[in-house]
């Protein structure tokens, strides 16, 4: 009897400790996110309040408004004078740049890697066995090694300070891994399915579109997500390839909120939230596919 009670008690203690630890870890992980969300919703006057407030005393969309409409830093009430000391806000342009570049590089990367991987798994030619491993090796080199040679290439192509330089740059880092992922995925799709469709009378292209692509969808989604994360979060390439403020993507653009010695934390945090939202939303929608895709790649690769 006492034994049962003891084990019951032990179970309760164990569960409590377990959940407390989990809560703590979750809180630690989420804290920066919560903090930036909270800061972005405070009016400027509350941001530096002592003691700091985690939950804003007063909610305000002031930071977001400034982010989008521009902010007059040294605006003096009652005068029309707006000194040029403050940079005009380019947040929307940066956001658009990031979106275009991410979308462009992801589409190119996924299309090329899918076709390349399909070819590697289904046709016989020299090198088809080692190319996938070789390409993975390329992905393992740090991108700082590529960035300067690539910059010189962009100069030659006349693409510096152009969004295309970023699109191509990101494709060059994401393509090898995407191709390897798709290669692993295609290897798991039995070739008999395609042969059955060929005998059913479908053309190669039709087989690819109607039979192969639907089955490869989890892999394609995983590859796309990977490519999006890399492109959306890149700082290095954008810092080096782009030099006009209007052409910057978000990552480098928001660094302009470090105004000399003064850091505009309100704008910084609001942009952080705005940057996180699109990818977070995307994750929530397709995380099921993401897990399936990575799982399949891992097991069969």
């Amino acid at each position, binding site marked *: 009897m006492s034994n049962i009670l003891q084990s019951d008690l032990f179970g309760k203690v164990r569960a409590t400790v377990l959940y407390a630890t989990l809560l703590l870890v979750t809180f630690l992980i989420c804290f920066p996110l919560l903090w930036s969300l909270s800061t972005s919703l405070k009016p400027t006057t509350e941001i530096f309040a002592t003691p700091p407030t985690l939950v804003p005393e007063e909610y305000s969309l002031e930071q977001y408004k400034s982010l989008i409409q521009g902010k007059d830093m040294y605006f003096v009430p009652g005068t029309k004078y707006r000194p040029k000391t403050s940079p005009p806000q380019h947040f929307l342009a940066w956001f658009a740049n990031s979106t275009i570049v991410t979308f462009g590089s992801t589409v190119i990367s996924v299309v090329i890697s899918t076709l390349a991987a399909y070819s590697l798994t289904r046709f016989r030619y020299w090198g088809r066995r080692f190319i996938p491993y070789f390409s993975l090796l390329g992905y393992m080199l740090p991108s700082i090694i590529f960035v300067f040679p690539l910059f010189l290439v962009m100069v030659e192509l006349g693409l510096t300070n152009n969004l295309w330089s970023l699109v191509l740059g990101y494709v060059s880092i994401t393509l090898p891994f995407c191709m390897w992922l798709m290669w692993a995925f295609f290897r798991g799709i039995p070739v008999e399915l395609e042969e059955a469709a060929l*005998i*059913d009378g*479908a053309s190669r292209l039709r087989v690819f579109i109607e039979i192969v692509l639907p089955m490869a969808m989890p892999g394609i989604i995983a590859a796309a997500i990977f490519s999006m994360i890399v492109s959306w979060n890149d700082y290095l390439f954008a810092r080096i390839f782009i030099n006009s403020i209007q052409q910057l993507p978000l990552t480098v653009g928001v660094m302009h909120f470090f105004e000399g010695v003064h850091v505009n934390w309100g704008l910084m945090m609001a942009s952080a939230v705005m940057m996180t939202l699109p990818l977070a939303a995307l994750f929530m929608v397709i995380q099921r596919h993401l897990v399936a895709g990575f799982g399949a790649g891992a097991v069969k690769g």
Partner: protein
Amino acid sequence: MEVSLEKVSKSFGSLEAVKDIDLSIREREFVTLLGPSGCGKTTLLRMIAGLEKVTSGSIYFGDKLVNNLRPGDRDVAMVFQNYALYPHFNVARNIGYGLKVRGAPKSEIERRVREVARILEIEGLLERKPRQLSGGQRQRVALGRAIVRDPFLFLMDEPLSNLDAKLRVSMRAELKRFHMRLNTTTIYVTHDQLEAMTMSDKIAVINDGVLQQFSTPQEVYNRPTNVFVAGFIGNPPMNLLNGTLTHENGPALKFGPARQTLPPATHPIVSKCPEGKRLILGIRPQDISLSEAAASANLVGKVWLVELVGSEKLVDLACGEDIQLMAEVKAEQNFSVDQTVGVQFNPSRIHLFDPESGIAMRD
């Protein structure tokens, strides 16, 4: 329409998978390509389907050379070993895909799919996805996909090998009935001789990419053309004994001290052979009888294993130093291990082979 293969060969790099195969399959025939795994039978089937290019030789459907025709243009249907059902389509779409690709109107597709589903008794499954089906049901869907297009030729690549033993037997009978009903020419690949024997009009035995024999099941069983066919067909396999020919007191083969008189039917052939020529004697376990009276027999063996297989017993025998035999006897006959028995071959069932070429010696 006839299917003819003329000197068809296939190489993968330096590996010759199929060598110079000639085969002529008549309309409505059920032909089995039988051989051990890796013998090239599947490659041959895939070449007929158009999934594999022919390295040399010609394949004709009727008078038409089809070597360079795409699989979809050959009017053949294939059932794969793993069924190859499209996992993202339901059963109805799986069956109807070939019709859809060929541009059949929707109502027509629906009608044909329903009809085939009725024949195969899978009407209740049309909305299901392949992963929700059992092995036997998948098999039927794969069959349905082949039947629905009403092709002139069915190609089947070990379609029963993924089913459990019991289902395999019933599907075997069902496939045979379908063939009798549809009367479509069928080429069936298997390594299971029982499937080949029970279903086929003709069997093509293949080994190492070479066609060994192409004839009816009875013929393949009763008159194997060479040592390979003799040893491959029949269960348990035929006993093959190395002996030396002697003409003393009539033609006979000597195995060490033992002597086996050869039946009159073989005399015209063996009389042309010189004394002392080495020959292989083939005798099926079913054609050996054992007696307890060892003394009067001309071949004596020692029992070293008795296995009961239902209505029969398989008896392993050692006759002298290096001759091992298997005999099949009625289950009622009792033999014990280490017993000495007399061994009698049914003389009319003796096969003779040339040890160098392996070819059966007949006139």
